[in-house]
């Protein structure tokens, strides 16, 4: 038998049932209702009367194996070793034995692991790789998230907002954080066209694919046929970086011009209003490591104005829809610029074809 034949492949992930606590197995699909006992603590009650408690705690998403082992150890102590992560990268201790709840809370407090992220809170920021691993970011991911969450920490462990508020971050327009439907989206943006390495391009890239990669058709073959490369019509380039994804000889980084854009008012759930895209609020904030103070401040301003102005249950986008975008810019003191006006596909649908505006 060859070595290859012994290899195990295409087995897929383990079946989840191996990881479910007994109370979940017993009441699978038979839960009746839930309560949020306090920020971060859920109680789900089954038709049988059984209950399970979940303590949700913050996670920076980057975890060392040491930290993962710590979490496993705590789970062993209070949860018979059962745990899960959430779709927003928080960690949940699954407590079947009610008497373990208070001791677990105490241990978390002592270890400085904050609980929260439930109900009308600001839960974890879905984010991406940033400077820690990716080749296209305009900004870092984890650092910005840390700075923003430190600042908004009061909202993580409380239910004081008019509704859920979901912040996401993506370090470039590829938007791996899928920030396009978030209450507040932090987006890394480049602002320079690619610098073409003509000498390398012929070796690294296929010219037709490179040309086809540009959404705005800004890339053409080099007019000098002897140079097997491309040129960019800089007027039509909006710095999306898609050409760089296809062709490493077209980097578009610029330490000074890259930065942060904020988009607001998106959502995913269908509650009251259908899902909505996030919309450009602030086109540019300077890239300012390690704590991005202007970004932090701009986000806080939006959060505070939202908290002050929204009706009960209103998500950020619903609040803005009600007061009107012109009022949003006014109350958040954000200057309105040409960048806010859409000029891409379907732009027309964003224009105001009515008298329904406010002065």
């Amino acid at each position: 038998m060859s070595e290859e034949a012994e290899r195990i492949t295409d087995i897929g992930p383990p079946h989840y049932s191996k990881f479910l606590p007994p109370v979940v197995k017993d009441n699978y699909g038979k839960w009746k209702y839930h309560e949020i006992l306090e920020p971060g603590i859920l109680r789900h009650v089954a038709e049988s009367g059984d209950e399970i408690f979940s303590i949700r705690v913050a996670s920076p998403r980057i975890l060392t194996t040491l930290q993962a082992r710590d979490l496993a150890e705590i789970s062993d102590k209070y949860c018979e070793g059962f745990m899960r992560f959430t779709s927003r990268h928080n960690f949940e201790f699954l407590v079947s034995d009610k008497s373990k709840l208070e001791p677990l809370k105490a241990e978390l407090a002592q270890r400085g692991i904050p609980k929260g992220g439930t109900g009308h809170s600001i839960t974890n920021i879905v984010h991406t790789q940033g400077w820690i691993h990716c080749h296209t970011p305009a900004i870092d991911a984890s650092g910005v998230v840390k700075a923003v969450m430190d600042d908004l920490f009061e909202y993580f462990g409380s239910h004081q907002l008019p509704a859920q508020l979901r912040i996401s971050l993506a370090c470039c327009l590829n938007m791996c954080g899928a920030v396009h439907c978030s209450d507040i989206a932090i987006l890394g943006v480049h602002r320079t066209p690619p610098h073409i390495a003509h000498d390398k391009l012929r070796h690294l890239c296929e010219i037709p694919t490179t040309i086809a990669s540009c959404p705005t058709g800004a890339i053409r073959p080099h007019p000098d046929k002897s140079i097997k490369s491309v040129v960019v019509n800089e007027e039509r380039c909006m710095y999306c970086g898609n050409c760089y994804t296809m062709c490493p000889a077209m980097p578009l980084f610029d330490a000074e011009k890259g930065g942060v854009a904020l988009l607001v008012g998106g959502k995913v759930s269908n509650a009251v209003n259908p899902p909505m895209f996030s919309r450009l609020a602030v086109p540019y904030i300077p890239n300012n490591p390690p704590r991005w103070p202007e970004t932090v401040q701009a986000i806080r301003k939006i959060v505070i104005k939202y908290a002050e102005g929204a009706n009960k249950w209103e998500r950020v986008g619903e609040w803005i829809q009600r007061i009107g975008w012109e009022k949003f810019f006014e109350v958040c003191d954000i200057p309105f610029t040409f960048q806010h006006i859409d000029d891409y596909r379907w732009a027309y649908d964003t224009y105001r074809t009515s008298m329904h505006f406010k002065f």
Partner: protein
Amino acid sequence: MHKTPLLDQLESGPYPSFVTDLKRLLPTKPQVNDLLGQLERSYKEKITHWKHGGIVGVLGYGSGIIGRYSDLPNEFPGLEHFHTMRINQPSGWFYTSAAIRELCDIWDQYGSGVLNMHGATGDIVFLGTRTEELEPCFQALARKGFDIGGSGSAMRSPSCCVGPARCEWSCYDTLEACYDITQEYQFELHRPSFPYKFKFKFSGCPNDCVASVARADCSVIGVWKDDIRIDQSAVKAYAGGELKPRGGGSPYAKLDIQADVVELCPTGCMSFDGSTLKIDNRNCNHCMHCINLMPQALRPGTETGATLLIGSHAPILEGAQMSWVIVPFMEMEPPYDNLKEIAGNIMEWWAENGKNRERVGELILRLGMRNFLEALGLPPVPQSIKIPRANPFFFWKDADFEAEAAGKKYYTTK
């Protein structure tokens, strides 16, 4: 030890610090020292120091590994290779401590010890290893029952909400559907053969807790067809303030059923006379709002299944799209043959017609919904649109004229 004065500033503050955590690995993992060093350099220069990735992988697979090399390998030799491995997570991200330890053991042995729990698609991300470690790491994982996830122009690791495991609203078994579909498409996950990536996400109800409508080419969202179940005594308890709105997750102590629920119902299909709540279920659009606010009084109906929505993706190239309704209601029972048949047809049509790096949602826009629906053998339904076309630029096919000749009328059937 590299000096990291900028990163050190991220150790203060109440939110857990990834810098603090990473520093715990310094004694055992020299590459983490380099990782922090290079990151510090990026913080200073405001620029990434990772090169455009190369193609690396494990034997027989074409996906699941993102090749990554530092552009400063001399300064940071630990980052000369620093590939990530995407490990397909279990449905719903459930683990036991034993499983977590197994994963950590493997990663401590073959990689940097740095994890992302989880990646934005849902995978366990093993962050940083060398090319030669990939295959042994994979084998070690496989022996423990784990497998690699997707990347490139392939099926990507499906993901799902916690669903029936812990949520009373799940209209189908999201975990099993996710597992079953993941198994069904092992080949497509590991051997990129599509025009571009393809993602499945499973949410048990219209709250859509995995954001499937925004980031899955194929979004499967639970829904019910019959009536919302009402417990009128619990309604009274909400009205009286004994039960708190949204299970207690809001700043509001007491529900004003008229103002908070009835008047915010987007279809206006509810009424409340002070004691009994009535719902005109034929006009409910299952937005979940009333259920969300009164989880002890209201629950989805019992004739449940899922809506199939197609096409969402991030902005590249045509601008972001959300998935849209293709099949308003489908049964969701194992082995999910109905879903697999449609999904198979979609992939086939897309494989035949899609351009390189064209998501299926973009292809549908380019070739038209009729083309797509006809290829799938699906009828046009008004649920798939928000609103009919405004422009009068529509096509007629021979099939239409034949149907007319056979008596088809467009204005009324009576």
